[in-house]
């Protein structure tokens, strides 16, 4: 058998977990056995202490930043929509703002409630979901 074929056969046998023939004239056999043992042996690598925690913290910072960007974008879009609606209503009904002014207490209360609910949702529910 040619050397290359012989080596292919040995590697195949070792891959399949079979033991190689105990042939004293074949130094390659012992070398392969040692090699396979060594390759299974983990090299000396030290994973830094707290690595997982450090990475998780970095990821969460990025996540919160992305979350904040989404909030900001939503706020801008809502503001544009409100201004657009106000402008359209004023063009159609010139008394629109006088009507709004007369209902200022109700509108203020609704706005305040909206902000309180959103803040409570973020601090009491969303943040818990992220860190638990």
């Amino acid at each position, binding site marked *: 058998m040619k050397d290359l074929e012989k*080596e*292919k056969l040995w*590697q195949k046998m070792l891959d399949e977990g079979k033991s190689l023939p105990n042939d004293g004239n074949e*130094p*390659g056999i*012992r*070398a*392969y056995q*040692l*090699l*396979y*043992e*060594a*390759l*299974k*042996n*983990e*090299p*000396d*690598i030290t*994973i*830094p202490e707290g*690595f*997982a*925690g*450090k*990475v*998780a*913290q*970095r*990821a*969460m910072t*990025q*996540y919160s930043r992305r*979350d904040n960007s989404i909030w900001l974008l939503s706020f801008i879009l809502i503001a544009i929509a409100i201004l657009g609606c106000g402008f359209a209503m004023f063009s159609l009904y010139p008394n629109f703002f006088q009507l709004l002014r007369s209902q200022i207490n109700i509108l203020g209360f609704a706005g305040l409630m909206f902000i309180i609910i959103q803040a409570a949702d973020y601090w009491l529910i969303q943040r818990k*979901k*992220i*860190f*638990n």
Partner: protein
Amino acid sequence: MTDDATLVSLVKKGNAVAFRQLVQLHERLVFHMVHRIVNQPEDCEDICQEVFMRVFQKIHLFNFQSKLSTWIATIAYRTAINYVRKEDKHQTDGLDKAAALPNQEQSALEQLEKKATYSFIHEQVALLPVHYRTVLTLYHLEEMSLQEIQKVTDMPLGTVKNYLFRARKLLKEKLELQFQPERL
């Protein structure tokens, strides 16, 4: 212990504890791969962090078409290979390097020690071309199948088999050269 599906769904929702657990479960795999591909211990931690950040950013794309570990290994492989390319540390000439290794002067007794043999082999692995190192690590250390290695590295199956055979043959020759046959 949380299974992969639960873990992934929690990470997708931005759960920090789940992500930390995911990192803990796969840090060994990522460190081994990055360490073998990059061959520079001082850069290893930063690259591994980068790998897990990518995992976090792309987790919404993971749809269980492969094992989670295979998917993470793919990201680790690509990140490490990109780093090697950027740093212009391509090891395409690794074969020649491996062929020109200096003989280390060690006593016969030391040579006999298994530990010394193992560390000699690990040193030789580090001198192999990057693709050889990768397939060896994935196959022997991470016990991945040839098909899984094919997925991770995006190499044809024949190439994976060929690299694996040639890498082991090269290492075996180095071992025979370094240690006298009767000592083996």
